[in-house]
């Protein structure tokens, strides 16, 4: 099976070279333990080799994502990185390309993702981050979201995307978490103890994993393991 590099060599070693191609991976953990940083590093790694990236942001503005990535020294000024802005409606901005007007309407999000994915069809390998599912579950009807997520995952696979979905730990009911575990190809858990961060690969398609916690650091050049 072909592998897609994560951008963190230490993590690639743990999972036999990278995420399986056209797979969907769930990142689970408390806030502040590096889920978004690893996701952005994953996108940046793709951009280095001209692989398109689609970043669906619900928690911060696209400008903030770009600024954070820029601070790590990652190349972001590229046409190959597209955003779906599902954040700005909450602060009153509802105009612009790929800016959603209300997260409560899940159809709008579905259409925006479908169109953006179709536009990014220039490469075999493509990367997508959904940051975060928790926020979607907060503002939209959870029963609809649970039906919507498998659709988005299937769509991403068909288009050749490797997709990262971010979930804040403990916030959602077990039924929702079980569904997400079932429909994704891999799960990586994060935790934090004092200022030390750890991750472990709980499950990964076609990959042997030890399931042990591995420490990583967030440096000024991104995540290092």
């Amino acid at each position, binding site marked *: 099976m072909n592998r897609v590099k994560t951008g963190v060599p230490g993590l690639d070693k743990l999972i036999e070279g990278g995420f399986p191609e056209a797979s969907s991976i769930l990142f689970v953990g408390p806030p502040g333990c590096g889920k978004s940083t690893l996701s952005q590093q994953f996108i940046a790694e793709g951009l280095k080799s001209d692989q398109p990236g689609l970043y669906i942001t619900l928690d911060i503005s696209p400008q903030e994502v770009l600024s954070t990535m820029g601070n790590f020294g990652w190349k972001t000024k590229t046409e190959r990185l597209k955003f779906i802005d599902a954040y700005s409606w909450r602060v009153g901005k509802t105009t612009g390309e790929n800016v959603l007007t209300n997260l409560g309407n899940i159809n709008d999000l579905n259409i925006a993702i479908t169109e953006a994915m179709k536009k990014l069809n220039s490469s075999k390998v493509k990367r997508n981050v959904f940051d975060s599912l928790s926020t979607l579950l907060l*503002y939209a009807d959870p029963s609809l979201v649970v039906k919507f997520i498998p659709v988005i995952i299937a769509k991403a696979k068909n288009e050749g995307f490797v997709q990262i979905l971010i979930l804040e730990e403990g916030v959602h009911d077990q039924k929702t978490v079980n569904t997400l575990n079932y429909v994704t190809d891999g799960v990586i858990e994060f935790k934090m103890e004092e200022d030390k961060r750890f991750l472990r690969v709980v499950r990964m398609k076609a990959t042997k994993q030890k399931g042990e916690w591995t420490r990583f650091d967030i440096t000024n050049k991104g995540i290092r393991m």
Partner: protein
Amino acid sequence: MFNPEYVGYLESFKEIGIKPFKFKEERVRNRMGDDVSIFLLRDILYSILSLSPKRYVPYIYSWGKYVGMQSARQTLGTLNLEFTTRLIVSLYRMKILDLEFYRDAFKKAWIYTKFGIPTFTYVNKATETFRIKTEECYQSFGLPNIKKRVCIFEDGIISGLFEYIFRKPVNSLEIQCNAAGDDCCEFSISIDSEFPRLEIFDSKYFKKIRTSNLNRMLVEKILRPTLGDITRLSIFQITYLGMWLSSSGAHTLLYWIGRESGLELSKRRKIKDLKKFLNSLKLGFVESRKQGKKYIFTIEECAFCYGSKNLNKRICSYVAGFLSGYMEKITGKRTNVIETKCIANGDKHCEFVSI
């Protein structure tokens, strides 16, 4: 000449723009005063802990440690010059564990922040271990007996305080707790670089505490006879705002727990008067009005952000979540509430709109 900047105090407060506490009274909130209900802080802590104890127990301990270190910075920075100079000399020349030296300052700071009334109960200089007993502990005094030690945040704060003072890795572990049926809380502190073996227990225990705490919010009688049911605004804000700013995902967590509490308290219409209720928690002065199908809430002197400089962010996610849960019960349908104005966004007050 001694330079107070040496201890690096107030660094984090300069970043977020909130005035730190001082040992002389200096009001930040003119009308509401600079205290916040301990039940509001407890709700945030125990709601988070109840989500997933295996992840959030270490998280809250670590967070407490951060708050403790920041508090130590302020404490040292706002004590008089002679004391601070002596402390620095003691630390850097003598390098001894001299608890007598810190005892009064620690007690003063602890009572000032209304964390509890501390006493050093056991000191072993050979093993560099000591214990602190805390009466009227802000985190657990009055909680039901669940036979568990639950002051994880306070554990973190104590370890952070002493880690800053001793400039060595320090960890604290609670050995007695009000929630375990003891008369007071007691913490064992040691110089130790290993992350402490915190007890992880089922979320049902935290949920029980959370429910008890929510019920307590509705009781007018004062729980803590000496300290009152309040803590300092600066401590509350560094706990909340620091957590909010630590991660892009934290607002989701805080909105979520606020929403759960709003829903829970609104069940069976427990909150008869929202304005009076939020005022009693010292959250701020609330006004509400209906505009078409939308409800608009304004909060003056909001406890979550009052005094913050303009961060270009709307940070009162807990309040938005709380109002969302409250409105859901009132209207009988799922309601989202977004924050449209915030003091941390340069506005004069906070405003929330139901959508």
